[in-house]
């Protein structure tokens, strides 16, 4: 079930600056309106997908391979652009952002990938610190916050190790530390447990739950059914290019799935 802003303390919606909009705090964090995306004209990945993600939710995105889970996250991150429709992040249309405005969007979004996307010859510390260096924070503050982030993911004391010598699970923890060190409003996780064994995957899910507990919205894309059954969570199933919302998780066979369009209509 969606968690509303009155129930949980939230991270700042957008960092204060010349374009800070306080009204953004009252809007859903993500709204998908009739989104279309295809890489080839005859094979659309998303076909009129609609969905609302409220602030502070942990939502699983699932579906078979090729159903558009990664595409959905890449559209939010503006690595891809929608063909039609809108994706609103805190009320702002991501598709209409200029090239120069994209970095500001990405600074509010932490992204965790299946293949970690670390710089192998950098140290663990450097891989995490880079997310704060782009914010032009002072070096002392960067040191403190990186230390905290590494402690949070269970890697304190490993800061000087090169990333390439770590195990897969440790590398994914570094990637998570990098995603959360800037205290983003939203964390996207694209199959983050895909390269890990089942026990490590469940441990990592626990880490994402901790992040969610601290007020961050988390979108967790996975096709691993065992992870979806660990706890009842909102699940969005991507099927045939559209989103089917299962608010209490897939374990509850009795509940009726809600389509994105119904959700939008309800919201309106």
């Amino acid at each position, binding site marked *: 079930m969606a968690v509303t802003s009155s129930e949980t303390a939230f991270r700042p919606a957008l960092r204060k600056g010349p374009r800070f909009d306080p009204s953004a705090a009252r809007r859903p964090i993500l709204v998908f309106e009739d989104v279309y995306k295809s890489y080839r004209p005859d094979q659309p990945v998303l076909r009129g997908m609609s969905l609302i993600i409220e602030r502070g939710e942990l939502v699983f995105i699932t579906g078979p391979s090729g159903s558009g889970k990664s595409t959905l996250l890449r559209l939010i*991150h503006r*690595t891809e652009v929608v063909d039609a429709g809108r994706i609103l992040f805190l009320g702002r249309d991501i598709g209409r952002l200029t*090239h*120069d405005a994209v*970095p*500001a*969007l*990405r*600074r*509010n*979004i932490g*992204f965790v990938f299946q293949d970690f*996307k*670390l*710089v*192998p*010859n*950098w140290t663990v510390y*450097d*891989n995490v*610190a*880079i*997310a704060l*260096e*782009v*914010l*032009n*924070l*002072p*070096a002392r503050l960067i040191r403190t916050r990186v230390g905290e982030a590494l402690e949070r993911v269970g890697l304190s004391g490993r800061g000087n190790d*090169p990333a390439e010598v770590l195990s897969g699970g440790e590398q994914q923890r570094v990637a998570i530390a*990098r995603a959360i060190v*800037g205290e983003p409003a939203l964390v996207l996780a694209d199959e983050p447990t895909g390269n890990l064994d089942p026990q490590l995957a469940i441990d990592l899910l626990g880490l994402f739950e901790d992040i969610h507990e601290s007020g961050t919205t988390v979108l967790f894309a996975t096709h691993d059914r065992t992870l979806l059954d660990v706890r009842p969570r909102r699940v969005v199933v991507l099927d045939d290019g559209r989103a089917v919302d299962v608010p209490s998780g897939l374990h509850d066979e009795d509940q009726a799935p809600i389509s994105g369009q119904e959700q939008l209509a309800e919201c309106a």
Partner: protein
Amino acid sequence: MRSGGDAQGKKLRTWRAGRSDLSLHLLTVFSLAVAFVCLAASLLVVTNLAAVRDRWSRAGRATVYLRDGTSDAEATDLLRALETTAFVKKVRLVTSMEARREVLSDDSDKALAALPAAAFPASLEVGFTEDVTSDSLETTALKLRALPCVETVETYQKWTERLSSLLGGGVTASVCLAAIVLAAVVSVIGSTMRLLLHRRRSEVEVLKLVGATDAFVRKPFVVEATAQGAAGAVAALVMLGVLFGIVRGRFDHELVSLLGVAPSFLPWPIALAMVSLGALLGAATAIISLRKMVLV
């Protein structure tokens, strides 16, 4: 605060790259140095060939042939007068007897020995200072020709013009060669920098992922590439300088007597221009190579 933070971030990341991939950076600088050695060597040829051309483009001497019957007193007066003339460094009187003796030093040529004494006129060998121009040399020659005791004046201008044009052709050819080498150097630097950046594309990808602006991504790479380009050029100059010093130490005497001038290393302005070129090419190739990578 903002620019300070940006400068700090740039410093951090530039240092990080140097620290994490030091051997790769050294290899890059060495590759660039090898390319620049070729360019510096061709420029060295151009510089020294131009110096030889300049040396031989003016004869710097003239022979004043005296008429038969010119007295010793007239010849001595003319010698004194020439010694006080502008641009004249030294004057030597060669009498008929001395001229005959010099020519007939090889007594195997009987035809020459049979020539009458009048065939060897007395002359004045005039040496000019290095700053004498062709015009002033020609003016002096004209004035000398007008004197009653002077038969003719040989300034060797035609010979020097031919030699000068030959050496000028050599200089042009070596400049063309240097231009070709420069094109090769540009290509080598471009390829080297592109390979280096391609190897570090994951770094660019991560920077874009965490919300770095294009300028934030680009600046440290451009700083690095500029430094590497300049370092490559400096290393090339040092290598060539050492080699030049060794060659000059061993063959300086022979080269001076062969060429007429002492070989010289690249002048400071050219060396400085080469280092600047290295820095500029490094920066330019980094900007061009990064252009596509940052558009993610």
